[in-house]
């Protein structure tokens, strides 16, 4: 599925858009069709798609990508505080500021490759996190997180709208951005972001990135300067993260330092690899899966389980609940860890890689091993 024809691209986009916009419908049997989780699916989907542009295409593993998520959030909340509650400027500011950060960090980090690159990005992210949590509190409001206040400036809003009694809501020209409207806003941006990622992947630029992944040194010998390409990829990917961060603030106007912690950076790595790095849809799947675990699995407790299995006879019920309960509720981390291990051990290409593999086996049973299989040996 490397080069998709224009027609195929259109078909893919149509299916994708329908699937995203209809999430409230087809996710409801899973108990996931409520605005906040849907928003998170879309937002972290954007984050993961952007991360995949860097990692999936070039193979450079950034371990500090969450810093751009945080910067996007802070920029967006400051835009709400200083200018207007309209979300358009907030999103633009989020993307611009994370782009600037990405340019700076990328410029330095890309001087090295391999694990040295990973550690450099990690170091920058940890510095940002530590400072945001402590010394930079006047800008970030530290542990409490940057919040809106009744007496914020809101210079542009102040010109047009009379201040209400309570906190104003984030809005898109009057449409409030919490609940379902917020989800659809994020979903539309996800679709646009996905389309752009698709275009990037299939463009000459994308091709150059893939060439860098397969052999950077050899590219260098041909007189090809890979630095500008890498830096652009890094910046694009950072801006996706900034967009995701801004959207987090749009749907819920608060920005906390922990968004920049290394564990948050690790999370997007996990999402991408879990779903299938380098594939288009994989990172999205991974993001959805992890957020689903975090929000739904963690809420199960024994009494809910007993209810769920109430159709079983009592003795069986107890046994089944006893077996499942260590993995839900406060044990959801355990499930997540075990799931990673299983997927990485048995499905090296992530979920999507695994499915593709299976599909090829089924369809081309009698043909020679495909290129994909050859690679994995």
């Amino acid at each position, binding site marked *: 599925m490397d080069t998709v024809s224009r027609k195929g691209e259109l078909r893919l986009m149509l299916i994708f858009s329908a699937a995203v916009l209809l999430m409230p419908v087809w996710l409801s049997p899973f108990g996931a069709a409520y605005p906040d989780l849907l928003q998170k699916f879309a937002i972290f989907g954007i984050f993961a798609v952007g991360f995949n542009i860097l990692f999936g295409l070039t193979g450079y*593993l950034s371990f500090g990508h969450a810093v751009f998520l945080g910067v996007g959030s802070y920029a967006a909340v400051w835009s709400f505080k200083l200018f207007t509650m309209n979300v358009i400027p907030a999103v633009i500011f989020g993307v611009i500021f994370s782009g600037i950060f990405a340019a700076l960090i990328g410029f*330095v980090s890309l*001087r*090295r*490759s*391999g*694990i*040295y690159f990973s*550690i*450099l990005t*990690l*170091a*920058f992210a*940890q*510095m940002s996190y*530590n*400072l945001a949590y*402590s*010394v930079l509190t006047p800008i970030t409001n530290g542990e409490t997180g940057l919040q809106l206040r009744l007496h914020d400036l809101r210079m542009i809003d102040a010109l047009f709208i009379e201040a209400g009694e309570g906190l104003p809501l984030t809005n898109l020209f009057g449409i409030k951005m919490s609940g379902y409207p917020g989800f659809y806003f994020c979903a539309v941006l996800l679709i646009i972001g996905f389309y752009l990622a698709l275009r990037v992947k299939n463009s000459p630029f994308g091709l150059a990135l893939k060439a860098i992944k397969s052999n950077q040194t050899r590219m260098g010998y041909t007189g090809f300067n890979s630095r500008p390409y890498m830096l652009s990829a890094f910046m694009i990917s950072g801006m996706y993260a900034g967009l995701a961060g801004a959207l987090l603030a749009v749907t819920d106007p608060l920005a906390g330092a922990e968004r920049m912690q*290394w*564990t948050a950076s*690790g999370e997007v*790595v*996990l999402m991408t*690899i879990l779903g299938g*790095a380098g594939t288009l849809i994989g990172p999205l799947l991974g993001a959805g899966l992890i957020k689903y675990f975090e929000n739904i699995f963690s809420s199960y407790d024994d009494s809910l389980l007993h209810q769920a299995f109430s159709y079983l006879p009592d003795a069986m019920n107890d046994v089944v609940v006893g077996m499942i309960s*260590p993995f839900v509720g406060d*044990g959801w*981390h*355990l499930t*997540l*860890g*075990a*799931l*990673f*291990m299983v997927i*990485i*051990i048995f499905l*090296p290409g992530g979920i999507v890689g695994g499915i593709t593999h299976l599909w090829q086996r089924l369809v081309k049973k009698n043909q020679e091993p495909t290129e994909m299989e050859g690679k994995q040996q």
Partner: protein
Amino acid sequence: MDAIFLQILNGLDKGGAYALIALGLTLVFGTLGVVNFAHGAVFMLGAFCAVTTQHLLTFSKKVKDEGITFFDAYKEVPYLEIWWGETGSFIIDYKVPFSILLAVPVMLLIGLAMERGLIRFFYNRPHADQILVTFGLAIVIQEIVKSIYGANPIPVPAPEIVSGSANIGILLGLGDSVVYPWWRLIYLANALVVIAAVFSFLKFTTYGMVVRAGMQDRETVGLLGINIQHRFTVVFGLASIVVGIAGAMYTPILSPDYHMGMDFLVLSFVVVVVGGMGSLEGAVLAGFMLGVLQSFAAMNEVKAVFPGIDQIIVYLVAVIILLTRPRGLMGRKGVMED
């Protein structure tokens, strides 16, 4: 002057822990080429060897507590004290040194089990896969420990006799204001001994020499008819022992909890990379260097000039070193750059 002396000593002491952890990590990386994100969890398991020893030694008889009237509560009296009185109490007091006896075989087994059961399937997989699978393993280990021991830190005190401070100022003629905890001095000494032992093993035994040769050029050593894989497995076990001892001995300094491995993981990677991937000497050097720098950055005089420097010093040094010395302090070309 006293203050600076203390900060240096403190830095070396912190560095001892960093060096031990980084040494284990580098042993695994240098021999097997595996980036082991579960290394922090192994450190934590070492610490919980001490906790387990404490549990075993203080295995207690439950006596109904008459002081609590609202509900049935129990006091615990260790069997060791019931049976052996003073001697029993003495053994319990020395639980941390005793725990080393438990930690060495247990950590060796854990290390071998990890390598044979999981890691060996990942030698030829991308580093990203290695990172992810060991990260998953770390989470699983953590959660299992949490389900057994809870999330709260568990105090494991040092033996009574070394729980106080040594007045090293008088010993060195610096005046009596220079004191330092006995246990931390022991930890530093222990770190030096373990490091020396590992290096002697690699430098002065034939077995170690083969391992080092294998680290340089695996294929050639293999062609000589030596089962290098087998030796590397042993090295993995050795690395687990090193970091396990580091963990067990650390418990009196830091009450262990299930999450302590993750807290050390990022730091230990920074140490390894600053030292140079795959360089044992580099790991040790970087460990001590970062320990000392961290200690100095915490001084009020330094913080007055650079606010917040103590929050970022380790990462800042890592950035500077990696930009000026591309492969860390003592790294070799071509390692981990693919």
